[in-house]
């Protein structure tokens, strides 16, 4: 299945793009997507504990199950205002 991955702020800079498509096996979870990305971008690993993950606009844990076409957003602690 394909998911749409968005990354913001410092994580966007590590991934060198704000948006990409990710191929994952059926039944994959958010944590699987994280591991795949950390293999490609080792600079992500230090951010694992502070990273927040949203699935289709809602914050989720790494054990959340993914579906084909989902939009996953990775972002660091927020800094608005």
């Amino acid at each position, binding site marked *: 299945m394909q998911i749409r991955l968005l990354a*913001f702020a410092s994580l966007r800079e590590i991934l060198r793009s704000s948006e990409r498509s990710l191929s994952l096996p059926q039944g994959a979870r958010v944590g699987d997507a994280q591991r795949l990305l950390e293999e490609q971008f080792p600079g992500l690993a230090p951010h694992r504990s502070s990273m927040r993950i949203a699935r289709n606009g809602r914050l989720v844990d790494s054990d959340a199950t993914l579906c084909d076409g989902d939009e996953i957003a990775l972002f660091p*602690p*927020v800094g*608005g*205002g």
Partner: protein
Amino acid sequence: MDSERFSIVRGPIDPRCFENIAGAGEGALVTFLGIVRNTAHDGRAVVGLSYEAYETMACTEFKAIDAQARERFGDVRLWIAHAVGDLAVGEVAVAVAATAEHRAAAFEACRFAIDQLKERAPIWKKERYADGNAQWRANKTDE
């Protein structure tokens, strides 16, 4: 701003954006403008900020903050606009307004809205310093 109460705006926000909010019969309008400061928390000289947002989720959070404000403070209405892109010192990054029948609820709702925005809205800022460096900055609780 009245036609769309929750928005992400490209570039600095017009400080006169609240001009058309009042007039629905409420007795109180409290506004807050968040402005780019010239110093960082560590004292470094700041020349500007660059903001980015997960825009759809940010507007969803603004609406959720508005709904929670009504649960807490009664019949209040919020307006929230946040800038994205490059802002210079002195420009407006965020604008919050709250209307209510009386002032107490409007003050409380406005304070609640900016506090909640800073804590949970998916928006990020990069400080640009006078020495040419730049750094992403997460919020502390009382900025």
